[in-house]
């Protein structure tokens, strides 16, 4: 299958085009070696099908972010697996001039191109007209005028794509960029020494030698030597080249553009409120508050429904299948594990629905603009705000969203502190434990438990900002930090894009994080169901004996047996090994097991507690709370879950990084185990010390 790449600046409406051309036939993965999202999809062009690769948005082949680096790596390397047979360049025709820099660079690389002028609807509204035929003559490439938003004229785009593949144009004789003398000298040396044919590709080698992952060490050294001998000044040459390109295409464009008068646009009017020095922060925080309310309120009903469905499915399996390890594995291992994954779909879905809408409208970049100053105080970037807010649902997509931050130190800081923000997986734990410590009293219009919830969130935010501040002092960075953020015009969201993004985020959570959660859920089940030596059998006998002595009912006897077996199991032994370490925090071995299992995913805590207190398939919070309330220490006879212990446990959950999936994502984003390990230990230390202080002071 032939490959066609889709390229363009950010905000060119490229993803709308991609969605229109591929629909649901798309796949999301990562470009090799980096976590830049790679979207591919199959597109039908008449008789044939082609593979469409959606390249990340880029302004030029001189990268300022990892997104742009990926575009360069692919387009400058014909050996790359994603190197396209042809390319569709999407430009926003209402700001045509600034979209031409990358276009002319790509043309100079000799890749066959179609120019797609997107946003025909916007241009019409603004009274703007582009002479497509004239532009096509001047650039010597096919030009199509269309609107991805309305889906108009996309067929012509497809026709041009098909004919470009059917009869590739002959290699261009004349490059768009006329090399300067210094450039020409270095180009010819590189062409000779490295056997590169295309002159612009040779020039880019001189500029980016040290950043290309596909070059051998030998070639890199050789290129460095050439650059040194020729006294090649990278930044100077880049500026000169860029200016020359503008000088050349600006007059070309003037000929083909009928421009309207500039006027106060709708965007200007909206921005006079949304970026107002007083209103902006008020609106921002109100909006974030509403987002949170929505995530909690709207997700509640579907979450309950999912929990109940999986609960009854589990019981059904246990009732129908013959009793034995298979039925238990299915009900307590697999079905419970699946339930634990699916239950988070509503929250993740709603959060991404809102974030995507805000992004599509154009608000997110304003949020980054207004919070940049504040974030800088903590060694981060305005864009970090998006990650920190998303962290409220799940740290995994949040950490993935940091890749638009160009400065490594700011990006790393954001990645390291995002897991402090209380994610949705902590909610069940908070809910159970707050129910314990805090009475549901009304104080004015507030509910005391609600306030406690908010307090825990604030604690997480304070920890995130505090440690970010500390990292700012510790981490060194050579990279200059910058913002340079485009604020796109406000637009009505394209619902198709919104749905596809939400679908994609949810399915990647279910498939990626879900795998780990399910696996751990099964391991846990095994740890709790089997034990060393004869322990398990003896536990059953002991339970039967006690049941006879005390005349217990059948259900009570079963509960007792399960509890004793748990104590004798591998999990029980692990918990007991941990007990001396966590006793100063007020935790017993059962909590120890729950801490271990939470490492798979925090929400597992509730499920583990249910198993430990042998309340079988009832996953209900109320039941667990009752059981925990009755729990007493076997030696001292005192209650285990005193307010002090519960508070200590809450603090532990606010601070500790108990999430394998997050660690895996951080490893992928930072490229080494160094950062996730550091993150794990400093968050763990903070959790331990915080809990210790809370318990020792209160008990």
């Amino acid at each position, binding site marked *: 299958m032939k490959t066609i790449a889709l390229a363009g600046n950010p905000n060119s409406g490229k993803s709308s085009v991609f969605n229109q051309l591929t629909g649901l036939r798309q796949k999301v993965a990562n470009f090799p070696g980096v976590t830049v999202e790679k979207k591919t999809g199959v597109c039908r062009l008449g008789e044939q099908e082609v593979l469409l690769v959606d390249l990340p948005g880029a*302004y*030029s082949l*001189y990268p*300022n972010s990892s997104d742009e680096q990926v575009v360069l790596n692919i387009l400058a390397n014909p050996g790359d697996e994603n190197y396209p047979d042809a390319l569709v360049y999407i430009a926003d025709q209402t*700001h045509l*001039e*600034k979209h031409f*820099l990358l276009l002319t660079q790509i043309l100079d690389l000799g890749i066959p191109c179609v120019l797609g002028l997107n946003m025909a609807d916007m241009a019409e509204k603004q009274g703007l007209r582009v002479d497509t035929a004239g532009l096509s003559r001047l650039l010597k490439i096919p030009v199509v005028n269309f609107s991805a938003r309305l889906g108009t004229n996309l067929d012509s785009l497809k026709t041009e794509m098909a004919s470009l593949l059917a009869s590739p144009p002959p290699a261009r004789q004349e490059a768009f960029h006329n090399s300067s003398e210094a450039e020409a000298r270095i180009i010819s040396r590189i062409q000779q020494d490295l056997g590169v044919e295309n002159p612009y590709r040779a020039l880019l080698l001189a500029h980016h030698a040290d950043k290309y992952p596909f070059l051998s060490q030998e070639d890199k050294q050789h290129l460095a030597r050439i650059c040194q001998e020729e006294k090649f000044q990278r*930044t*100077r040459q*880049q*500026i000169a080249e*860029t*200016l020359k390109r*503008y000088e050349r295409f600006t007059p070309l464009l003037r000929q083909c553009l009928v421009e309207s008068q*500039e006027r106060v646009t709708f*965007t*200007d009017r909206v*921005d006079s409120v949304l*970026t*107002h*020095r007083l209103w*902006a922060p008020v609106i921002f925080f109100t909006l974030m508050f509403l987002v949170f309310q929505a995530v909690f309120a709207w997700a509640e009903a579907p979450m309950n429904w999912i929990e109940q469905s999986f609960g009854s499915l589990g019981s059904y399996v246990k009732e129908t299948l013959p009793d034995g390890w298979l039925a238990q594995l299915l009900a307590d291992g697999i079905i419970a594990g699946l339930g634990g994954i699916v239950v988070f779909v509503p929250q993740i879905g709603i959060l991404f629905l809102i974030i995507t809408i805000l992004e599509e409208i154009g608000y997110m*970049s304003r949020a*980054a*603009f*207004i919070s*940049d*100053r504040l974030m*800088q105080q903590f060694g981060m970037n*305005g864009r970090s705000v998006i990650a920190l807010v998303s962290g409220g649902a799940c740290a995994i997509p949040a950490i993935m969203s940091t890749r638009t931050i160009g400065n490594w130190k700011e990006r790393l800081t954001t990645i390291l502190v995002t897991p402090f923000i209380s994610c949705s997986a902590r909610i069940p734990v908070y809910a159970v434990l707050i129910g314990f410590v805090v009475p549901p009293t009304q104080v004015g219009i507030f509910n005391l438990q609600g306030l406690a919830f908010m307090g825990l969130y604030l604690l997480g935010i304070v920890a995130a900002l505090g440690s970010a501040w500390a990292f700012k002092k510790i981490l060194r960075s050579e990279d*200059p930090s*910058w*913002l*340079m*953020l*485009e*604020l*796109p*015009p406000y637009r009505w969201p394209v619902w198709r894009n919104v749905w596809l993004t939400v679908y994609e985020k949810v399915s990647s959570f279910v498939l990626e994080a879900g795998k780990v959660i399910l696996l751990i859920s099964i391991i846990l089940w095994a740890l709790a169901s089997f034990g060393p030596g004869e322990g398990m059998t003896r536990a059953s006998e002991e339970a039967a004996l006690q049941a006879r002595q005390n005349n217990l009912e059948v259900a009570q006897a079963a509960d007792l047996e399960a509890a004793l077996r748990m104590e004798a199991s591998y999990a029980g032994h692990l918990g007991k090994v941990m007990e001396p370490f966590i006793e100063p925090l007020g935790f017993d071995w059962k909590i120890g097991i729950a801490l271990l299992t939470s490492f798979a995913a925090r929400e597992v805590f509730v499920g583990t507690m249910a198993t430990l207190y042998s309340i079988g398939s009832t996953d209900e919070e109320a039941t667990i709370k009752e059981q925990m309330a009755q729990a007493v220490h076997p030696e001292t006879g005192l209650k285990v879950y005193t307010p002090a212990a519960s508070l200590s446990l809450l603090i532990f959950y606010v601070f500790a990084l108990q999430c394998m999936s997050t660690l895996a994502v951080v490893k992928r984003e930072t490229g080494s185990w160094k950062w996730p390990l550091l993150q794990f230990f400093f968050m763990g230390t903070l959790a331990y010390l915080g809990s210790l202080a809370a318990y020792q002071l209160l008990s």
Partner: protein
Amino acid sequence: MSSAVSVLKEGITGKISHFTSDEVAGKLLTMGVLPGSRVQIVRIAPFKGGYYLKIDGINLAVRQQEASSIVLEIA
């Protein structure tokens, strides 16, 4: 009269005469910001925060430190 964006007030318009930092110039050029581009200072965030600039019809947010390398020719 020419002066850096960072010392100007909200609402002022002018044309870019030059950049004082190659680093910043290199990045701004790729976004279509050139000498000769018409700039309007739309908004300055409080406490020396970001600058919201309208440059040839494109809205761009930059930091104070970047704004200080953009020199405007004011009519």
